[in-house]
C-alpha cells in the first residue's frame, strides 16, 4: 500500500520524467475538454451563436455592399466573433468559477503545475474555435456561395486560432479579478460591445466616422483586419502591424493577470 520509503529522499521534492509530465498535460487538457463537452449549455450557444448570426446577416438579409462579397466579408468577421467567445468565456468565466468553487485552490495545493491548467484551457479554446470556424465555413460555402482555395482557408483558420491568444490572456485577467457569475457579466460587457464596435457584426462603414476611427483600440478590430485581408475583402493590409498589436495586447493582459495573481 505504501511506497518503500527507502526510495524516497528525506528532504526535497520528487522528480517526474518527461513522459509523465507530458501525460499530466495531456490528461489535464483531455478532462477539461470532456468536462466542457458534457456541459451542453456552454457548447451549444458557443457553436451555434456565430453561425446563426452569420446566416441571418450574410444570407437571409438581402443587400449588396458595392464590390464587396458580403458572404466572404462576414465569414471573416463572424469567424473573429466566433473564436473570441470561447477564449473569453473559457478563461474568464471558467477560471472565475473554478476560483469561487475552490477547485483552483485545490489544484494549487496539488502538485499540478499551473501551466498545465492554462494549457488545458488554451487547448479547449482552440478546439472550440476550430469547430466554430469549420461550421461557419460550411455555412458560407453551402448557403453563401463563398469559394476559397484550401491554402487561403488554412491561412484564415491559422490566423483565427492564433488570434484567440490575446483574448485568452484578456479572459485570464478578468478571471483573476472577479469570482463566479460576476465574470459572466463582465465578459459580456466587453465581448458584445467590442464585437459591434470592431465591425464584426456589421461592417464598420455603416457606423459614424468617430466609431470607425476608434475601432483601432479594440484587439478584435486588429484580428478582423488580418482575417479580412486573408479572405481578400480588404486590400493592402499591414499584416505585421496588426500581428504586432495583437501580440502587444497578449503581453499586456498576461502581465496584468500575473501581476494580479502574484499579489495574493
Amino acid at each position: 500500500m505504501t511506497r518503500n520509503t527507502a526510495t524516497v529522499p528525506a528532504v526535497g521534492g520528487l522528480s517526474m520524467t518527461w513522459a509523465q509530465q507530458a501525460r499530466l498535460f495531456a490528461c489535464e487538457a483531455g478532462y477539461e475538454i470532456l468536462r466542457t463537452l458534457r456541459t451542453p449549455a456552454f457548447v451549444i450557444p458557443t457553436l451555434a451563436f456565430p453561425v446563426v448570426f452569420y446566416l441571418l446577416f450574410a444570407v437571409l438579409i438581402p443587400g449588396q455592399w458595392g464590390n464587396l462579397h458580403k458572404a466572404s466579408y462576414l465569414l471573416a468577421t463572424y469567424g473573429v466573433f466566433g473564436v473570441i467567445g470561447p477564449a473569453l468565456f473559457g478563461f474568464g468565466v471558467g477560471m472565475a468559477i473554478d476560483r469561487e468553487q475552490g477547485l483552483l485552490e485545490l489544484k494549487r495545493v496539488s502538485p499540478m503545475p499551473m501551466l498545465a491548467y492554462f494549457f488545458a484551457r488554451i487547448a479547449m479554446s482552440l478546439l472550440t474555435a476550430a469547430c466554430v470556424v469549420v461550421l461557419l465555413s460550411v455555412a458560407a460555402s453551402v448557403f453563401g456561395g463563398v469559394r476559397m482555395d484550401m491554402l487561403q482557408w488554412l491561412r484564415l483558420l491559422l490566423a483565427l486560432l492564433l488570434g484567440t491568444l490575446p483574448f485568452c490572456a484578456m479572459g485570464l485577467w478578468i478571471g483573476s479579478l472577479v469570482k463566479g457569475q460576476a465574470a459572466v457579466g463582465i465578459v459580456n460587457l466587453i465581448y458584445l460591445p467590442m464585437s459591434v464596435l470592431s465591425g464584426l457584426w456589421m461592417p464598420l462603414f455603416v457606423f459614424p466616422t468617430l466609431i470607425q476611427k476608434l475601432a483601432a483600440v479594440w484587439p478584435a478590430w486588429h484580428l478582423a483586419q488580418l482575417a479580412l485581408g486573408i479572405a481578400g475583402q480588404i486590400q493592402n493590409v499591414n499584416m505585421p502591424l496588426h500581428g504586432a498589436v495583437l501580440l502587444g495586447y497578449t503581453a499586456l493582459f498576461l502581465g496584468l493577470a500575473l501581476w494580479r495573481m502574484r499579489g495574493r
Partner: protein
Amino acid sequence: MSASLPIASLRQVHKRYGAVTALDGMELDLRRGELLAMLGSNGAGKTTALGVLTGRLCADAGEVKLFGADPKDAAVRRRIGVMLQEARLPDTLRVQELVHQFSCYYPQPRPLQETLALAGLSALARRAYGALSGGQQRRVQFALAICGCPELVFVDEPTSGLDVEARRAFWQVIQCLRDAGTSIVLTTHYLEEADALADRVVLIANGRVLAEDTPAGLKARARSARIRCVTQLSLTELLSIPGVQSAEAQGSCRSLRCDDSDQVLRRLLARDPSVSGIEIRPLSLEDAFLTLTGEAA
C-alpha cells in the same frame, strides 16, 4: 534517524488578512508517521496554517518547511495530498475520471482501483460527481488527497457536515491510512474526533499554538465542568469544598470549576440547601486546555 526530524514545520509564522491576524507567530512540528489533530474554533487559524504548509498561501514572516523545502515548489508537493475544507469539483466528471486526473499529478500514484477501494468509492466509480451525496463528495475529495500515495496527508475539517454514520466510516478510512504509515494532519473542531484518531493534539487559538497534549490527557481535562449557581456561601467557603478548583463571583451568581461536577454538587447542596439557579456546563475546549497549562495565556 529521520524519525526525530520534523517532516514539516512552521517557525514564528505570521499571516495577516488586512486588519485580521490569522497566524501570530505559529510554531508547529509534524513528525513522521503521526496523526496530528489541530483543534480550535472557527477562525482560530487552522485553515491558514494548512494553507501556508501546503503552499497555497504565502507567510508574511517566518519560516515554512515541507520536507526541508519550500511548499511553493510543486516537486515537494508531490509528497503530500490535501483535502480542503471546501472544494467543488466539476459536476460532469465521473468519480474514476477525477481520481485518474489527480493521479496523473504524481510520479508514483496508487493504482486507481486501490484508491477507490480505500475511499469506499468502488461502487460509485462511474457516477458523475454532481450526482453524489454530500458525504460521497467528501469521500471523492479524500480520494484525490490520497491517490498519489503521499507520505503526508492534510485534511481540513473532513467530517464537518457529515452525519454520525458517515463520520465513523471516515474515521475508519483515516485509521487505515495511518496504519499503513502515512503521516496525517487533521483539523477539526470536534474534540471527539481528535480523541478518536490523533496521536497528538495541538490546540490553536488566535493564530498560535496554545497547548499540546495526547488525547488521553485531553480527555482528562475535558471532564471538567463549570457550575453556576446562586448561593449564600462565600467564595472562600466554596473553595473549601473538595473537588472545586476555582471559584469566582459573576454578579449575584458564583461560578465554580471542578473535575467531578456530580460530587461537587452533592457537597454544595449539603452545605447550602437554599442554592438555586443551578447550571452545569462542560468546560469549553480552551478552558479545559488552560486548566492544565496553568492559564499560560
